[in-house]
């Protein structure tokens, strides 16, 4: 069970940027793992995060909280957290919390990468 809930993967793209494929769910079951993994990335010098939500069907408030924590860590260091391929359930949560003002959104991971160049 512990292994299957950790269904996100991290792919480096430049010396300070990564793409995180969020997977099917980011919720109370794997939010702590997500938080630990992204903290590790920040410690190793990563400042820009592209979150790929193309497969994400569940994003609950605990999951969203772990993304907020990441944002609060990198934003004082001029880092960015951007969203790519935002699925409908993720869009609903982003709308409700009005956080689109903070997380820029892109139709694809490619478009998000372009914006960071």
């Amino acid at each position, binding site marked *: 069970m*512990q292994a299957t809930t950790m269904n996100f993967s991290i792919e480096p793209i430049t010396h300070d940027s990564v793409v995180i494929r969020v997977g099917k769910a980011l919720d*109370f079951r794997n939010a702590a793992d997500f938080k630990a993994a992204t903290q590790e990335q920040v410690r190793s010098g990563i400042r820009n995060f592209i979150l790929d939500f193309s497969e994400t069907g569940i994003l*609950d*408030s*605990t999951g*969203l*909280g772990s993304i*907020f*924590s990441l*944002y*609060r860590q990198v934003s004082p260091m001029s880092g960015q957290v951007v969203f790519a391929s935002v699925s409908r359930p993720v869009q*609903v949560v982003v709308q*409700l*919390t*009005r*956080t689109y*003002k*903070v997380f820029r959104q892109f139709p694809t991971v490619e478009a998000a990468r372009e914006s960071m160049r």
Partner: protein
Amino acid sequence: MSQHTILIVEDEHTLRRLLEYRLGKQYSVRTAANGEEALERIAEEVPRLIISDVMMPKMDGFALQAALQEKDETKAVPFIFLTAKADEASLLRGRRTGVDDYITKPFDIDQLLSRVNRLLERTAQFQSQLDAKIGQDFSQKLMPKKMPSASGYRTFFHSAPREHGGGDIFDCTQPRPGVHFITIGDVMGKGLQAKFYAFSFLGYIRSTLHAMLRTTSSPAELMTRVNQVLMDDPPLEDTFASLLLIKWEPERNLVTYANAGHCRPVLLGPRGAEVVSYSDMILGLDANAEFKDTSLILQPGSALVSYTDGLLEQVMKNGEQLGEEGILQFVQRAHGKADPVQALIGNVLEESSETRFGDDILMFWLEREASRERQSRGPAPRWFSPFSEGTES
């Protein structure tokens, strides 16, 4: 790091590796070859369970177990002895305080595994019972003792916290006659931790309101201050919360609110039910976030219905979450019932996929009574003309 770390203390290499291999399929396993090494491992990380041999060089199992009994943080860690000595004396010495099980070599590994599972389940259950008890206590303290009330109005409230639910907040205060402040919010996260943060956070909100209401009565200004507290105060660094601050002035039939990323309330008025759409960003994310006040006049017979995300995210029979559209429909159906909140909750549950709510449920229904005149004439009409309401003061 995995939650269930098991420490195996065994000097015999082959047996140590075998146990590591078998237990490693289910748990995170660490090993030590004697009591001294075990104490080093335990100093790095306290395991959830210890399996230890008795006869070992340097420091034997009895000495290890005695050392663990002396420290509060290790005293309660479940402890299983493995020993080759099947003699009575050893057995008797083995049955001492803090030893949960005792297995004689040669042993069946599946039997050992089932005992390990059972012990861990038992401790986990004990923990969750304790959490539930503390959580319930927090939940009770988080809820109001008294509902706001005013003549010409009806208020209904329902709150049903779940032991593994989140940190729902509700508070009401009357800073001066004729003005009520109602706070509805949700601290992000799940379980006891969220409840604890909600509890502390509500303290901050109360004191902010108390301190600021002398100089302002704008929900947006109060919201800005609460956001700054969340941004600046290190203990609240990782706390994010959605919050709806409502100022209610019954004599003016006026409601003024600021909404920080909270579920948008429903206004049930002459034209049916609609979502009160204006809202700003959730608290704790952006120090420069701006908040705006929105005012609503409550017409006779209309109601403002606020709730938390447990209701919004309830999964219905069709497999979909209830959502704002669903809530609009249920609010309309409940309108006019003796207790509209209980009616709504009953209706939602009837059409849910499960027979109970999956998360904390909190709902507050503020309704202006239809005018007396109309009540005496019989049932209220389905619509209200703004011109016929001119006599209201």
